[in-house]
Every structure is written in structure tokens, then in C-alpha cells.
């Protein structure tokens, strides 16, 4: 058990490409931390540097207070779970799990005991003598976990350990990974590109983009107070809506209606010295069917009327999709997010909008609907650099 400190850790490849730039991160003992970001953001490189599988170009990595930059992976006492599980195909489950202990020259009785314990925890006892090729995906994943936990390492590193599982199993394994980590209390660094895993698993989440840390914080904090457009768009599913808007005398004009800023928002915006043209961000749950909102709220919020493009009823609530006329909000961050989501080449004019309405809403697909949104929940971003103009440390 130990804390892990990344002090201005940088990775530059021989060809000059900068993969990770000056990452500062203090991971507390026993903390579960998530590195998240689109592919190519440097999260796996960061993990590999902590593992010792890749050299650190600059900066310092300390595990348990000790500089480990120069140490080989085997001397760092950390275990890793790979995306492909990397189970040794020529060894049985038992041999796979015992492998790190054998290398450490642990005596037979202890090996037996530890493997047995780990197998019990992971419910693998009846599979110990099978080869990996005869296991299901979920079982293989558990063996990989088992190989990591048998030796009580200082830390676990997990590189997208669940991404090879099917959706249902992934949810199930997600909870067991979480439970296991709490139970063992081992410091864990977990890499994923799936923001749902990031939200549900971690004590803290590190959002990365282009080798640079964008924001570090508890999942709920990142959701409520994204530092910039990129984090705002990346965290949350369905993701935040972005609409170009104009700030004028404390009022916000956009295609989804004009609103007067609430005092809280106005103070923040003024403090941040906001430009006139901004990007307004608003989460789907901050919309509501105007018919279901009381009069006081109705007058203080924004309102628009438009034809419902698609309506999905989830039972507990309804998702109404709109396609508003106008120019989409444009910024480098949003482009990259669209690219990561694979929707950058989906043709579409106008501004897509996702709203979550309560199930009592009478909105009908194809028909016009009156939609209200909460003016106090609006977040404003500077289109030139993506900065969140309404960000507070609170």
C-alpha cells in the first residue's frame, strides 16, 4: 500500500512527439483513481509509465515516497490488469495466478494458500485447473484480476480491464471491481475511455486530452463544475448540449430562448470577464416540459417551442430530441469530442438538442412541444479557449 505521486511527468517519444505533458497527480494511499479521455490522450502512456513499461522522459514518479523512475517494473511492486487480460495460454488458471509468486520465490504452501484465497474472492475455485482458452470472457477477466491481487502489491494498475466484455457483464464486473477495491483498500489507477466507468468507479477522475490533464476531481464535481468545454462534453451521458449564445446586458440570447442570467451566474460571468459571444452548455436533465413547470420557475427560466424530432420513452422519463435551426457551436474541443464519439462525419444541419423530460410530459414525436430550461443551471464557455466562464471551486 502506498501513495503514488506524479511530479511533472512527461513522455516525449524519440521522434519528438509529446505524448504526456507535465502531469501532476497525487494519488492517496488506498485511493481509486481513474484516468479517462479519448483514445490518444496519453492516459495509457501515463499508466505504462507508472508501471515502468515505458520510460519517463522528464519529471519524477514516486511510489511510497521513493523515486522509482529508474526501477524495472518487477522492482516497483505493482500489479497490472491488461485490456486483453494477457493470460499465459500455456498455464492453467492456478499457474497463471501463482506465476508472480513463483517468480518472487514464495514457498509452495504460501502460494497454495494465497491462490486459494484469491480464487475464493473471485469465485474461480472450480476453474483452477482449466486453461485460459476454456474460460469465458468474464472468467478470464477475473483470472487477470486474481493474478494481480495474489501478491498484495502496493498498487493495481488497470488498463481498460472491462472493455472486452459485453455490455451487461461490464456493468456487473464494474460493481465487483469497485467492491474488491474497497475490500482490499489497495491504491488503484484505472484507465478507461468510458465516461460511465469513470463516473461510477473512481474516488477521483483525471480527464486527459492531448497529453495534458484537463481537470482532476471527484466524479460529481467534474459533472457539476467542468473546468472547460472538453470536460463538460466528455463527462455525462447523454452529453451536455452546446448552443451558441450572445451575452448582452446580463441577458443571454440563443435559439432556445432568451433568459436573464441569475445573480449567481452573472457574478461569475462578470468575474471571468466573459466575451460577448459564448457557448452555452446545458445538461439534458435541466430541461422540462413547460406544461409541468410552475409559473414562478417558468418566468425565470428560458423557453422555446419546437417540433420534437425523436421521442424515446424510458419509462422513468422521456428523452425528447430536437434539431434546431442555426449554426452549431464550434470549437476545437467540440470537434475532438465529436470525432471521439465517431459522429464528426454524420451529416446534419442545425443544432441537435437532447432533453430529458419527466414521464408525465405530453410531448409527441413529430408534434410541437413547449420546453423550459433552468436558467441557473446554464454553464457558459469561452469559444476561443474552451474555458468555463461559470466555473467555481465550490
Amino acid at each position, binding site marked *: 500500500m502506498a501513495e503514488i505521486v506524479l511530479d511533472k511527468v512527461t513522455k516525449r517519444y524519440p521522434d519528438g512527439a509529446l505524448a504526456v505533458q507535465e502531469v501532476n497527480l497525487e494519488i492517496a494511499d488506498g485511493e481509486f483513481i481513474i484516468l479517462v479521455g479519448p483514445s*490518444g490522450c496519453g492516459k495509457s502512456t501515463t499508466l505504462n509509465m507508472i508501471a515502468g513499461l515505458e520510460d519517463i522522459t522528464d519529471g519524477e514518479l514516486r511510489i511510497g515516497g521513493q523515486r522509482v523512475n529508474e526501477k524495472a517494473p518487477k522492482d516497483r511492486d505493482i500489479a497490472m490488469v491488461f485490456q486483453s487480460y494477457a493470460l499465459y495460454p500455456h498455464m492453467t488458471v492456478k499457474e497463471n495466478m501463482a506465476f508472480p509468486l513463483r517468480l518472487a520465490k514464495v514457498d509452495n504452501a504460501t502460494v497454495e494458500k494465497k491462490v486459494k484465497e484469491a480464487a475464493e474472492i473471485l469465485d474461480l475455485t472450480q476453474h483452477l485447473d482449466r486453461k485460459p482458452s476454456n474460460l469465458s470472457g468474464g472468467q478470464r477477466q477475473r483470472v487477470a484480476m486474481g493474478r494481480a491481487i495474489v501478491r498484495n502489491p502496493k498498487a493495481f494498475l488497470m488498463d481498460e480491464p472491462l472493455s472486452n466484455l459485453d455490455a451487461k457483464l461490464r456493468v456487473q464486473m464494474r460493481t465487483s471491481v469497485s467492491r474488491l477495491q474497497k475490500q482490499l483498500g489497495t491504491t488503484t489507477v484505472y484507465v478507461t475511455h468510458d465516461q460511465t466507468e469513470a463516473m461510477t468507479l473512481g474516488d477521483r477522475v483525471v480527464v486527459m486530452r492531448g497529453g495534458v490533464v484537463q481537470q482532476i476531481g471527484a466524479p460529481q464535481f467534474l459533472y457539476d463544475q467542468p473546468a472547460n468545454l472538453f470536460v463538460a462534453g466528455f463527462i455525462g451521458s447523454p452529453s451536455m448540449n452546446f448552443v451558441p449564445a450572445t451575452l448582452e446586458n446580463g441577458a443571454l440570447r440563443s435559439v432556445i430562448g432568451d433568459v436573464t442570467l441569475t445573480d449567481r451566474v452573472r457574478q461569475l460571468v462578470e468575474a471571468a470577464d466573459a466575451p460577448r459571444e459564448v457557448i452555452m452548455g446545458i445538461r439534458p436533465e435541466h430541461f422540462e416540459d413547460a406544461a409541468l413547470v410552475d409559473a414562478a420557475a417558468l418566468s425565470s427560466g428560458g423557453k422555446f417551442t419546437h417540433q420534437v424530432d425523436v421521442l424515446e420513452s424510458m419509462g422513468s422519463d422521456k428523452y425528447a430530441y430536437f434539431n434546431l435551426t442555426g449554426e452549431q457551436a464550434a470549437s*476545437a474541443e467540440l470537434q*475532438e469530442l465529436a470525432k471521439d464519439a465517431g459522429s464528426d462525419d454524420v451529416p446534419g444541419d442545425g443544432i441537435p438538442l437532447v432533453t430529458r423530460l419527466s414521464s408525465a410530459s405530453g410531448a409527441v414525436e413529430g408534434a410541437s412541444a413547449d420546453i423550459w430550461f433552468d436558467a441557473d443551471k446554464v454553464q457558459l464557455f469561452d469559444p476561443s479557449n474552451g474555458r468555463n466562464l461559470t466555473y467555481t471551486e465550490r
Partner: protein
Amino acid sequence: MSQTTTEDTTTTGASPAPVAPRKKVLSEGKKAERRLGWLLCAPAALTMIAVTGWPILYSLLLSMQRFDLKFPDRTEWIWFDNYVTVLSSPYWWNAVWVTVLLTVVTVAVELVLGMSLALIMHRALVGRGIVRTTTLIPYGIVTVVAAFSWRFAWTPGTGYLAEALGGDPVLTEKIPSLMVVGLAEIWKTTPFMALLLMAGLALVPDDLLKAAAMDGASGWQRFIKITVPIMKPAILVALLFRTLDAFRIFDNLFVLTAGSQGTSSVSMLTYNNLIKGLNLGIGSTMSVLIFIMVAIIAFVFIKLFGTAAPGSDDGGKR
């Protein structure tokens, strides 16, 4: 794996990270990798070059000399006279036609038979293991052994085939002899063809065939319109390998006819001039000519089929 290698910062647009331009600077690690690569390849590369490179040049030199080991004093530089001699020899042209005929006929038959065999091995409901095992025997067996089996089978008095066909000595006439040689060659190499084709068959997704069946294609149509086009690369590779191999035919001919009655192939004729006739000049000339013919065949295949040919390259990937 992919993560570590692909995350080389392909940042887009207004990235906050000032990405340094990629320079062609070799790090120590890269240099060490190169050195190790060369070091590991050196023994193989040097052996191959030593045993083929110099001899090829040497045979070019030999082919331009009068060089008969029976008359070593009369060795002299005669430029292309040997080529004139060989190219105006009816024996040479007969050998060329025999070789071409054997190559074309055997490879064509092997393709058809090999495809049937591959389909049997690929689709067999029962006894797939037995079929695969037994078909490997012709592939593995020493060619000379197989050739003797065929020779004795056709020897009047001794052979079951000769007896069954009335006891005529088939191996004493040109056309029947060539047919027997072709048969022996086909028997021996069809399994190899079938294995290569089977690997190609395995690349055809079952779903595609099911989809075609749903679209109303008959079995034959599925084979012609789906299976064959998809496995075309495998077919071409198999054809190329087998064509070049058939062109070198020697063992079977040596045992079955020894090149008598005008059944010599180019390899056989070269061997006879060289080892039996000890005429290095003429032998080398023929070697060079064969080399040129094989190069032309390979060139035509690779030109015609472009990327389908191996080594054209995804040497490193797949």
C-alpha cells in the same frame, strides 16, 4: 499493446500541447533495435547470399566460356556462343516444350483436384482428421520413393497397373511416359495445393455464404460468386508456388524415364549436360536460361496479380 504504440499524440487542431515537429532523430533505443535486427538476420542473410549470390554470378561467367571438364585445356572465353548453341538445339526446345506442357497440365489438374480436396477437407462432416492425415502422406513422402512406386506399378510383369492395362510397356514411349510422369507429379503435389486452398477457404466467412444462400444463390453460384473471389489471393499464391515448382520437375522424370524418348525437362537436360556430360559451359548456359524463364513466370504472376502475391509486401504486418 495498441494503446502504448498508438498514443503518440495525434492531437488535433488547437491542441493545448505544443507538439514538437517530428524529427528524424534516432534514439539509443531505436539504434539498438536496428543493430539487434541486423545482428539477428545476419547469419540467415549471409548464408543465403553466399550460397546463391556468388554462384549465380559465377554461372553467368561459366556460361560465356567453352568449359568442358573432359577437355579442360580447351577452355576459352566465347561470349554468347553457348547461348547460340543451346538456343538452336532441338533437344533444348523439346525440353522446354515438355516442361511447359507438364507444368501447364499438372498445375491445371492440381488446381481442380486440389480445390475439390480442399472443399472435402473443409466441409467434411465425418472423418476430417483421417482425410487430412492421409493427404499429407503424398506431400511428405520422398519424391524418389513415390516415383519408384509408380515406375514399378507400370513395369510390365511387376506392376499391378501394367498388368491391369494389358502389360504394354508404357514407359518406353514419349506420350504415355509423359502421362505417367504427370500422374506421379499430380499425385504428389495435389495435397500441397489443397492445403493452401483450404487455408484460403477458411478465410471465407460462413455468414457471407449464409447471406448468399438467403439471397437465393445455389451452391455452385455461392462457390463461383462468393468463395472463389474471396479466396483469390490464396488461389494465386498456390498457383504461383506450384507453377514455379512444377517448372523445376526433375526427381520424377529422373526415376521414371531418365529423360529418354525425348521426355527430358529443362532441369533434366541441364543435369545430363552437366553431371553426365561434364560440360560446365553448356550446363551453366542452360541454368541461366532456366533462371530467366522462372524470373519471367514470377514476374508475370506478380505483375498480373499485384498485391495478391506474397512479399509484395506486408512483410512486417499482415
